[in-house]
């Protein structure tokens, strides 16, 4: 028991010595400006890289959207096409065995026209 108390006292003493020496070593004077300058530079570069990345992404999205619009623009069915098909079907239905078959025929003709237009492009 006496031995344990001795050890504890010795440890307490060592801990006190180490504690007191904690402030002995310092950071050098030039560390602060060095850290702040490097951080500002790095953060600036990081922002620049992020801006370039975002701008490239936006440009790519716009480019893809424009190319999709350009390639599919001529084939997309239009409201005007639907009206024409409906009108043609109405005219054909008089002697073509009903409005349903006339609509199918008008729609097939529209698809043929679209196909020809796509091939000519």
């Amino acid at each position, binding site marked *: 028991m006496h031995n344990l108390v001795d050890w504890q006292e010795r*440890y307490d003493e060592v801990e006190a010595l*180490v*504690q007191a*020496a904690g402030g002995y*070593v*310092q950071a050098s004077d030039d*560390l602060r400006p060095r850290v702040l300058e490097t*951080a500002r530079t*790095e*953060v600036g570069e990081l922002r620049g890289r992020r801006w370039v990345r975002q701008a490239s992404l936006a440009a790519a999205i716009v480019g893809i959207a424009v190319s999709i619009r350009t390639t599919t623009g001529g084939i997309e069915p239009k409201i005007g096409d639907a009206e024409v098909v409906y009108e043609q079907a109405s005219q054909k239905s008089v002697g073509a065995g009903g409005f349903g078959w006339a609509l199918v025929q008008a729609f097939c003709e529209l698809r043929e026209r679209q196909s020809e237009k796509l091939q000519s492009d």
Partner: protein
Amino acid sequence: MALPDDFSQRVRDCTDRLAAAGVDALGALFDLTSHRLVRFSVTLTRNQHDAEDAVQACLVKVAGRPLLLAAADSPWAYLLQMVRNESLAIIRRKRRAGVVTSLTDLVTRRRIDELEQEETHRAVWLAIRSLPQEQAEVVVLKIWEAMTFAEIAQILEASPNTVASRYQYAMSKLAAKLTKARQEARHA
């Protein structure tokens, strides 16, 4: 002895300011933590220049991604862990982990009223530098950062029992070395 709450809270405040204001708020975090971080890193790298490089790399990373630190449960413990990782990376790169028997690389404070204690401080630092890195870092975190074994275990990613055991070994060695140093000083 638990980590002083006010210091942890001050680190959290600085971290929050950094997250809100950006790199302009880094100076306050540096002023608050640099001395402790350099001191911790010096015991790992055993070289002042390398320790400052580790602290610089860590704080620059924090400035670039402040939310990383702000989101941590304990920003101070996280910062210590970051500096430890940077220090170990430097050690691996430079293969400079051996025992150092001098203090010539260190930037030290010499106050007039502490001149008498300087020899003791030097003996303590030499004794700490002679410890294996695993034991030295536990001593630093336990005594200078006033952390519990459980808190230290989280930073070092070891079990609290392992940490406590390393501390016991370290204290035995320090006690022997400091006693020897004191006897040599008396004879000199």
